């Protein structure tokens, strides 16, 4: 067991480190785009064997590679040729949008009908019909799917909103399920879902202190901003170490609320650079070997920070703006 480390949410478990001794740490003081492109290109063609324990998230791995290359504006480096799990469906549709496929050509009805039956009485979603855990991650996938298909017949938005609000913890953050500890990844799922479903507008911040039947935005804001810690990085929960991926989970949440300027971007950038790997990609902590999950979210975080040469993101959808609008 790895002591005090936080696992990413939309990724079942970190791949075990491959049995190599790491190269001597290279101190990169700039965002090295070419290294990241090469890293993802390699991953596109062949993933090292230790990803075999991530096998069921194959489509998710494909999404990380393809969307990552899209953010880097390097999709031309690969040629993309063309079961049902909500996360896989989300990734598949995201990939289709990234490569410019017109989703209105798709038979959405069957996806949406199937998805509707995955929603539970309390508003949450199961990812598959045969039984699995249910929590905010799959609610997010469902909302994103409906949004991309531009068809909300796949879910009851009001019930979904209710479930989300029940996931807001006493401290303002959101947990994966009602009662669970507030967590950066869960918080992203909550706010991105509310935004996708149309419950959060652009004027969110100006109404932050207004009492409403919606989420307590003021305490959410305060909680989220305190997640940035002394080393400039962002933690997923109070009193835990900072980790590359939360730069996206919390950064994107703040961006969605219009509050991204409240994050110390300079400090965050410095932290992320220490997580940048000589092989390309990002590790979870400084000097850790890179894995696809943290590499993708590291790139996404650099996009939010406005790194030159990176395409801007549609924060709530998890793809570039260009992919989201289909232009």
């Amino acid at each position, binding site marked *: 067991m790895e002591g005090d480390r936080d696992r990413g949410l939309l990724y079942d478990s970190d791949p*075990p480190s491959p049995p190599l001794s790491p190269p001597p740490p290279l101190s990169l003081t700039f965002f090295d785009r070419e290294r990241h492109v090469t890293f993802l290109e390699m991953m596109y063609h062949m993933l090292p064997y230790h990803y*075999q324990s*991530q096998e*069921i998230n194959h489509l998710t791995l494909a999404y990380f590679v393809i969307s990552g290359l899209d953010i880097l504006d390097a999709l031309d480096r690969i040629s993309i040729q063309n079961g049902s799990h909500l996360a896989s469906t989300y990734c598949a549709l995201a990939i289709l949008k990234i490569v410019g496929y017109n989703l209105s050509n798709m038979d959405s009805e069957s996806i949406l009908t199937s998805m509707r039956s995955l929603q539970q009485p309390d508003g949450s979603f199961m990812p598959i019909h045969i039984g699995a855990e249910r929590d905010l991650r799959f609610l997010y996938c469902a909302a994103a799917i409906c949004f991309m298909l531009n068809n909300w017949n796949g879910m009851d938005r009001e019930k979904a909103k209710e479930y989300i609000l029940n996931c807001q913890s*006493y401290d303002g953050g959101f947990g994966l399920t009602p009662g*669970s*500890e507030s967590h950066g990844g869960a918080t992203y799922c909550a706010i991105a879902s509310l935004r996708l479903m149309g419950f959060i507008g652009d004027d969110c911040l100006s109404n932050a202190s207004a009492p409403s039947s919606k989420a307590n935005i003021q305490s959410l804001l305060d909680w989220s901003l305190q997640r*940035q810690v002394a080393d400039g990085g962002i933690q997923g929960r109070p*009193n835990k170490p900072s980790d590359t991926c939360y730069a996206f989970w919390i950064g994107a949440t703040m961006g969605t609320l219009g509050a991204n300027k409240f994050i110390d971007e300079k400090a965050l950038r410095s932290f992320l650079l220490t997580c940048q790997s000589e092989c390309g990609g990002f590790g979870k902590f400084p000097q850790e070997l890179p894995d696809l999950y943290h590499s993708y979210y590291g790139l996404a975080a650099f996009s939010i920070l406005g790194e030159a040469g990176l395409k801007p993101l549609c924060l709530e959808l998890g793809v570039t703006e260009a992919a989201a609008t289909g232009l």
Partner: protein
Amino acid sequence: MASSGEDRRAWVPLGSLPEFADVTPLPQDDGPSPVVAIAYRDEFRETMDYFRSLYSSRELSPRSLLITTLAISFNPANYTVWQFRRQVLEALDADLTDELDFTERVAKGNAKNYQLWHHRRWVAEKLGSDAAYRELEFTRKIFYLDAKNYHAWSHRQWVLQALGGWENELDYCVQLLEEDVLNNSAWNQRYFVVTKSPLLGGLKAVRDSEVDYAIEAINMNPQNESPWRYLRGLYNDENDAWLNDSRVPSACLRVLKAKRNFKFALSTLLDLLCLGFKPNQEIRDAITSLRTPDSGEVGSDSDLAKSICSILGHEDPMRANYWTWRSSKLPQAAEV
């Protein structure tokens, strides 16, 4: 037979075993041009070929159970394998207490695996409330190694609500917080217990002692965010009661007077002021003494609030833009 990369025992090809002699392995179909192809090890590939065969023929037998054990040892994240295993267990009417042993073994290297925890929940649900004690013990063992394991905490909360066992839960939170007062998961669990336990009488009944408990933790470590959030959380949606609990501003004052690690004390006072709190002279003086050159006067309450925002901009510089924004959002003295 399971390989974790460390295991040096030789793999015995399944094709050479008599019990699988009549099974035709089914290879994976990735289509003509696979992307993100994984460089599978042979043992893994062969195991999954046999799994696919038994799965597609829906064979619910002891050898199917064995193949799921093998497949899980290679890839504990494959939910199809776990689901098939559940079908086999039901068909064989297997002893599920053995299954608890199995999940504990898998948990050893995979304590943060969603499928594992879902499977454990399924087993526990079938065993019913008799399983409660064992589930609480199991999560306790996990917490011994990682006191913040998110999955284990979710499981523990589910156990309490579905199977019971609340009797010692508050004590357990006390113990965990004694070991590490920074353990935010334990604080969250404490909130869960005081709000949801059927044995404590509800939040209002225990709020008084909980406020004292949080303040004690604050006194020891004012830089610890957890007890501050917890304290505020005890009064969620009850602003009148929050405003009227004099222990809160007193606790803030104590921290301010020490002149270190006071950012949460200040933001708590700011929160109170925004709700209409009327601070006494001692508090005003304490804030005045922390003023930086650009903080301005602290005459009126709204000036005081602005002053706090200004001090916070220096004390909590990472969030300087946020404190500036908060200042701009303060109710103006002249506003109706």
